[in-house]
């Protein structure tokens, strides 16, 4: 056995250096963090770095005490150090980014309490933060039982006393840390922050395990999957594999299937299909979840967002195409009564427009793997919708609710008033406006009746439309924030008696 090319001692030093640097970095970030920062997330990182360090020290000492050759010891310590560096890389890359923008002025604190309240309907032991991103998209990053997961994954190399120590230290940590990211360019737009509800849908999905109702998904009946394996097996080497090294070897005529076993190809194709199907299941569940939570407001927010990044975009590995998603959502809105005669005429008419648009779209993806995922989703569409409905009984923003509650919100907004509260059934008591009602009022005003708000503004004609959108967003953010404060302050009438 040769000596490791980078000595065990050098490797060990690299580990110590990295640990010291990460600790220093963490302390610096804590010093600059505002009071609203996720302090318990900082604690989790401290515990993890400490645990990784102890595991490495323990392993190194254990290896040194073994009765094996010095070269073997060096190799084992070098391996342990490489592994430790990988763990530290993971902490650095996966966790530290969330500590870097804590003091950003672009965190929409006005919507944070509402998001936290909705998240706590699924799990009370959750800490949720909003994270501004420069890229124009939204994101969900959830960490459940951060330290416990570390112990479970690496139980073989963590001594029992250290496991107990980590668990004791982690007692005060929440079950979940959730970071919802958003494009910071829309930080002051209540309208364009609405897709955050899709990200909350991911939280509900993972916390409740909604996706588990869908899986396993049998794709054996989907001919396209088998055909894809056949297609790759029949593919000329020049298209798929490396070029033949000598002219004597068969090149164009050679078939990949003759060289690679069908089993290997099937594994690779199926692994890719599985990954895509998993991603799509999560995305469609989150769409339907957000839709049931706030009805048309999410639909319009998604369609507008998709419009800015590509409404005709093709399906990706991570996401179905906007057309496929809109198709799912329109069907769910129909289920919620938005196509019935009693629903809002404006909403009904616009949704019919979207339904017609879907007819013009080719929903079947051209990409083979995306096609398999699309067919799998199509086969399981009813199951998917039922799973979301089953897990979100408290969220069902039906057309009837929309008709009953949104017009008074819209009336406030049209008059330039933030829709914070409204009379309750108890005489003389005002109740906070619902979050979903406010968002729907905002989108209705934005989509169908911006003129009334515009007419209130005293500014140049060419600036009026943009200024009205800005005022609308200010009114809505104020309403979301103030109604949430009112909700927290106001005791239920029965508790007062």
């Amino acid at each position, binding site marked *: 056995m040769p000596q490791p090319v980078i000595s065990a001692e050098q490797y060990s030093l690299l580990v110590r250096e990295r640990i010291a640097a990460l600790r220093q970095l963490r302390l610096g970030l804590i010093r600059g963090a505002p009071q609203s920062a996720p302090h318990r997330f900082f604690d989790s990182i401290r515990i993890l770095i400490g645990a990784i360090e102890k595991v490495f020290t323990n392993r190194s000492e254990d290896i040194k005490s073994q009765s094996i050759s010095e070269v073997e010891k060096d190799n*084992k310590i070098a*391996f342990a150090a*490489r*592994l430790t560096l*990988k*763990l530290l890389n*993971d*902490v650095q890359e*996966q*966790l530290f980014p969330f500590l870097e923008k804590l003091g950003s002025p672009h965190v929409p604190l006005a919507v944070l309490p509402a998001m936290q309240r909705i998240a706590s309907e699924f799990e009370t032991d959750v800490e949720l933060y909003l994270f501004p991103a420069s890229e124009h*998209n*939204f*994101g*969900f*990053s*959830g*960490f459940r039982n*951060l330290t416990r*997961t*570390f112990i479970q*994954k*690496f139980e*073989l*190399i963590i001594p029992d006393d250290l496991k107990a120590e980590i668990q004791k230290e982690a007692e005060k940590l929440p079950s979940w840390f959730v970071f919802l990211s958003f494009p910071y360019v829309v930080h002051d737009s209540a309208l364009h922050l609405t897709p955050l509800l*899709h*990200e909350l849908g*991911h939280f509900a999905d*993972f916390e409740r395990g909604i*996706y*588990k109702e869908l*899986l*396993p*998904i*049998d*794709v*054996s009946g*989907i001919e396209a*999957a088998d055909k894809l394996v056949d297609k790759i097996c029949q593919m000329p080497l020049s298209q798929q594999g490396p070029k033949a090294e000598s002219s004597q070897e068969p090149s164009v005529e050679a078939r990949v299937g003759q060289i690679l076993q069908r*089993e*290997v190809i*099937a*594994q690779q194709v*199926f*692994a890719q*299909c*599985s*990954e895509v*199907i*998993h991603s799509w299941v*999560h*995305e469609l569940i*989150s769409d339907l979840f957000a839709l049931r939570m706030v009805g048309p407001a999410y639909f319009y927010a*998604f369609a507008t967002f*998709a419009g800015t*990044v*590509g409404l005709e*975009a093709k399906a990706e590995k*991570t*996401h179905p195409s*906007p057309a496929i998603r809109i198709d799912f959502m329109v069907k769910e809105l129909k289920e919620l009564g938005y196509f019935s005669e009693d629903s809002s005429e404006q909403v009904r008419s616009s949704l019919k427009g979207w339904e017609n648009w879907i007819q013009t779209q080719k929903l079947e993806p051209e990409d083979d793997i995306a096609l398999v995922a699309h067919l799998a989703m199509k086969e399981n569409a009813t199951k998917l919708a039922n799973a979301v409905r089953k897990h979100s009984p408290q969220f069902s923003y039906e057309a009837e609710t929309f008709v009953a509650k949104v017009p008074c919100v819209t009336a406030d907004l049209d008059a330039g008033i933030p829709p914070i509260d409204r009379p309750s059934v108890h005489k003389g008591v005002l109740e906070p406006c619902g979050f979903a009602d406010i968002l729907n009022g905002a989108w209705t005003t934005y989509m169908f009746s911006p003129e009334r708000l515009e007419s209130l503004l005293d500014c140049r004609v060419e600036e009026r439309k943009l200024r009205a959108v800005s005022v609308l967003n200010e009114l809505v953010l104020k309403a979301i924030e103030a109604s949430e404060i009112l909700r927290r302050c106001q005791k239920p009438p029965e508790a007062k008696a």
Partner: protein
Amino acid sequence: MIKSTDRQVFSESLRMAVLADEVASSLRHISERKSLEDHDRRVIGMAEKALAEMSRGRDATKNMQVEESLDASLAYGQAIQAIQLKPDRFASFESFETLVASLNGQLKEIEAARKFDVEDLYEFFTAIRELAMTGGTRKFDSVSVSGVE
């Protein structure tokens, strides 16, 4: 497009690397001592679970069932690559099932302290360890430039 991630902080590959390293290390000790300690028994148990996971991944692929977790699919993929990495050692096995059955049988013999023939198992798990450690697509640097032809 709306991006959503639920990446694991510590990858499944890394977990597999640790497991495979522990298995290889235990097998080496067992073969030298011709006996098992408590830790070895735990490790052998985990090795059996890993083989079972690989088989589950194989079954899911064969039956085209997209499972709740992708871990079994990953484990099966790594097992196939391990076989490809050491063809001299594993080419004689007729199929994946035969190989896994043989490795399982060897683990049972070791667990019962009847035979201490560890070579196939050692080769298999060291291959898994190498693959798991080199997994991922880490870039050494990222380059971005504009205004230059």
